[in-house]
């Protein structure tokens, strides 16, 4: 298994209401062990997954939003957010959590790998992926 592929996780659903977001995150966490190039793209209701200040006890659901902030430690280098999906939902970049990334070997570091992108860039990201996991 020496080949390195571009993995893209496409997240299109709200974090609660269905289990897709959480079970997608489980794939990302497990997949880290395989040392591939990993990006996430959040679009449609999937942008809600990254919203700050999630408060879930009222619906008796585990609040797993803190896990997104650790993804930089799980080999995730890019977290793209579709700008139009944000705008359509009355959200801005300020509503989103920040995720830091650091390369243990080279000491490269990025304060925030969450990046709001337009549709043309999203299309580019999708086209550049070898594998798209769609959740």
């Amino acid at each position, binding site marked *: 298994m020496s080949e390195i592929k571009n993995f893209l996780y496409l997240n299109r659903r709200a974090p609660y209401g269905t289990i897709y977001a959480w*079970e997608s995150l489980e794939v990302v966490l497990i*997949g880290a*062990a*395989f040392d591939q190039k990993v990006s996430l793209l959040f679009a449609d209701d999937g942008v809600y997954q990254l919203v700050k200040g999630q408060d879930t006890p009222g619906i008796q659901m585990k609040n797993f939003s803190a896990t997104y902030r650790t993804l930089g430690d799980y080999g995730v280098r890019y977290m793209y957010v579709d700008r139009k999906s944000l705008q359509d939902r009355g959200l801005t970049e300020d509503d989103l959590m920040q995720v830091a990334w650091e390369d243990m070997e080279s000491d490269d570091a990025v304060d925030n790998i969450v990046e709001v992108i337009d549709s043309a860039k999203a299309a580019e990201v999708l086209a550049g992926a070898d*594998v798209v996991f*769609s959740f």
Partner: protein
Amino acid sequence: MKLAIQINEGPYQHQASDTAYHFTKAALEKGHEVFRVFFYHDGVYNSSRLTTPPQDDRNIVNRWAELAAKYNLDMVVCVAAAQRRGIVDEGEAKRNGKDATNIHPNFRISGLGQLIEAAIQSERLVVFGD
């Protein structure tokens, strides 16, 4: 071409498993290789041998099982998704103190690493679901 198949929805409720079955069968008949079929989310329900549809309807579980037997298909059910939803083999029953099993013997329960590996090893990962 070498393919990996992922199924994210349960049987009967949703068309994903039917479409995946027809796609997989057609691909195999055309001589393509299917590296693995991976069942995730509610897709794990496609492996219950207790499934009992009306006699005049298709039996989705048996249909997968027969295809697997014919082509020696590797059909893997995600362990974390299966535990949540009560899909159990003997090992899981023992480990979790359950009094029964329900998985069809042509499926096996394993981890998400099997999905990642399938995506790496195959030329295409084809996902069936919403």
